[in-house]
């Protein structure tokens, strides 16, 4: 409860204010949602502190923080799409191969003379189409999200191989590689882009009527339907967003590795699911945040980076990352 303001400022009252604030904190920590929202931030700070203490001169340098931000940006964009899918109680297992498909479309457009950004639009639209198909089939045929996107995982990967003939295409463009190397006031462009997308997604989910419909669909689809929410439309839009972001992320990937590769990178998919759960989004839908998964992505990348900088042997890295995912998820878990 709010404190009633009093005119006098005696020391006794100051003490009262203090205990009340403490009390508020105590109450807040008893709220399970407080933990699911903030644990990932605490974990992230802990990871930075631990590695910072171990290797202050290599982990906590501007150069290395820049590395973590660059490494986080593409997964952070992917995770936004995954968050939307999970918020409707769905899951998008096809994002990594949609990204591969988008990359291949990018490569074909670019090598046929499109400029780097026109090719980017082509790749993004390719992603949108895949996502739209996902949503359409899920909504109209009433098949589980899991099965449809699992199918798309294979179909998109297959089409990527078919249209590329399995051959990677080199993309040599200074403008594009500058996107990966350059920055804006010390923040890498890639992270600026990821952050803008994250903020826009937050606004969309929590400040628009459609965003409320998304959460309502995930919370209780029958209730949402009877309230007049167009659930089919919600599913189609959500998966289209996820596909679009995957297609767009394909361009950013090419900016980093300089080639359109027809092989799918499944680590991105696994990381996105881990980040969504760590970020406090309920896998049963209806409840979630956009910033939680964003911070979780930073956490996972900072962890991988820190373990590499400290020189932990590769085998132990798998173990430690898995442990952190499980332990944090155990903390985040609410009834």
């Amino acid at each position: 409860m709010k404190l009633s303001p009093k005119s006098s400022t005696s020391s006794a009252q100051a003490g009262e204010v203090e205990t009340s604030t403490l009390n508020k904190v105590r109450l807040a920590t008893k709220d399970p949602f407080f933990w699911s929202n903030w644990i990932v931030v605490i974990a992230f700070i802990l990871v930075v502190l631990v590695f910072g203490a171990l290797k202050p001169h290599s982990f906590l340098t501007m150069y290395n923080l820049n590395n973590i931000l660059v490494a986080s940006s593409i997964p952070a964009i992917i995770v936004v799409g995954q968050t939307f899918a999970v918020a409707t109680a769905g899951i998008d297992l096809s994002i990594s191969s949609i990204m591969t498909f988008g990359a291949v479309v990018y490569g074909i457009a670019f090598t046929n003379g499109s400029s780097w950004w026109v090719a980017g639009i082509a790749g993004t639209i390719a992603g949108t189409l895949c996502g739209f198909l996902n949503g359409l089939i899920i909504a109209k045929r009433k098949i589980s999200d899991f099965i449809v996107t699992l199918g798309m995982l294979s179909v998109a990967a297959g089409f990527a191989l078919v249209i590329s003939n399995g051959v990677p295409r080199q993309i040599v463009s200074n403008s594009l590689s500058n996107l990966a190397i350059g920055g804006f006031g010390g923040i890498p462009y890639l992270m600026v882009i990821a952050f803008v997308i994250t903020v826009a997604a937050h606004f969309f989910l929590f400040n628009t009527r459609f965003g409320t419909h998304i959460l309502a669909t995930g919370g209780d689809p029958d209730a949402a339907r009877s309230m007049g929410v167009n659930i089919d439309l919600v599913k189609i839009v959500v998966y289209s967003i996820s596909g679009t972001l995957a297609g767009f992320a394909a361009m950013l990937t090419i900016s980093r590795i300089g080639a359109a590769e027809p092989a799918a990178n499944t680590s991105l998919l696994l990381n996105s699911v881990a980040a969504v759960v760590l970020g406090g989004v309920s896998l049963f839908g209806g409840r979630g945040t956009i910033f939680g998964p964003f911070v979780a992505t930073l956490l996972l990348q900072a962890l991988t980076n820190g373990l590499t900088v400290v020189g932990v042997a590769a085998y132990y890295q798998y173990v430690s990352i898995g442990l952190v995912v499980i332990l944090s998820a155990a903390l985040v878990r609410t009834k």
Partner: protein
Amino acid sequence: MKKNNRFLTIGISVVAAAALVLAGTTPSNAAGKKLSSIRIAVVIKGLDNPYFVSVKQGIIDTAKKLGVVANVQAAPGLNDDIGQANKLDALAGQNYDCYIVIPITSNNLSQGLGKVTKAGKPIINIDSPVDPASLKAAGGKITSFAGTDNTAAGKAGGVSMLKLIGSGKKIGLIAGLAGNVTSNARIAGFEAGAAGSTFVGPVNADWDTTKALDAANAMLVANPDIAAFFAANDQMAQGVAKAVAAAGKKIPVYGVDGLMDNLNLIKAGSVTASISQYPYVMGKMGVEACVVLAQGGKVPAWTITPYGVIDSSNVDAALKSGNQTPPGGYKDPYAPLIKK
């Protein structure tokens, strides 16, 4: 209660993370000429393939023998080209004397290597070459390359197989991932070495044992007169051997790499031969090249690492030695340049 549990779990996770951190090494800013002060950073491909485990072993053993420090990092997962690039980025800003890399694709590490070169550090590229065009665009420079000639290795396999089955026969070809440079080179080399034969395929089995088994089954059904198989790596050759045995046939099966598993199968007779490459030697040469450079020496820009056909005639010797190095010895241009 619940709250306490949470704090306990936080505590556990922090301790777990800290416990996994191995003893760090003290960086030295002086251009370390002393062996004990030389630090090498290594980024290789996924350790889910025994081939790269062998590269890693060569690096670790050689580093230990010479008394230098090597931080060996691997790509976090299969095809995780960005994850591998992140690892190199994380190491590129640190005070290492030299970097050894095996890129997943010919381009994915180029930007990170550009940073390494800009920091004035030498790069040794082993096994799979970095694409020169993308490297140049990123401002990177490879000081020395040590790897196999996959075309020559494939050709040696083709020549050896022709001796066994004679010319004019049908040979089934099993390739790795579609479009993969290494696979293409091995297959093309084999076709040149076994010229005069009729080839079925190549069918892509993605370096995978099970996929190779299925592919070989299908090929045998369609072409019962196949007289031999060539697979572009040992793991696929194992799958092919299973298919051949299941079909009740006794025809030669060749693989490439010289993995210990396969040598055991060669001894047992289910696989006929493997064109052995020596990943252990590549790792060893990488470390030696780095040490020479850190000591201020010069290294050759291009070294072809050894290869050789292992079959029933020499499999015992190879098994006995662990097949880390060729039975007949090999030329190592780096080792004599090291100042002890």
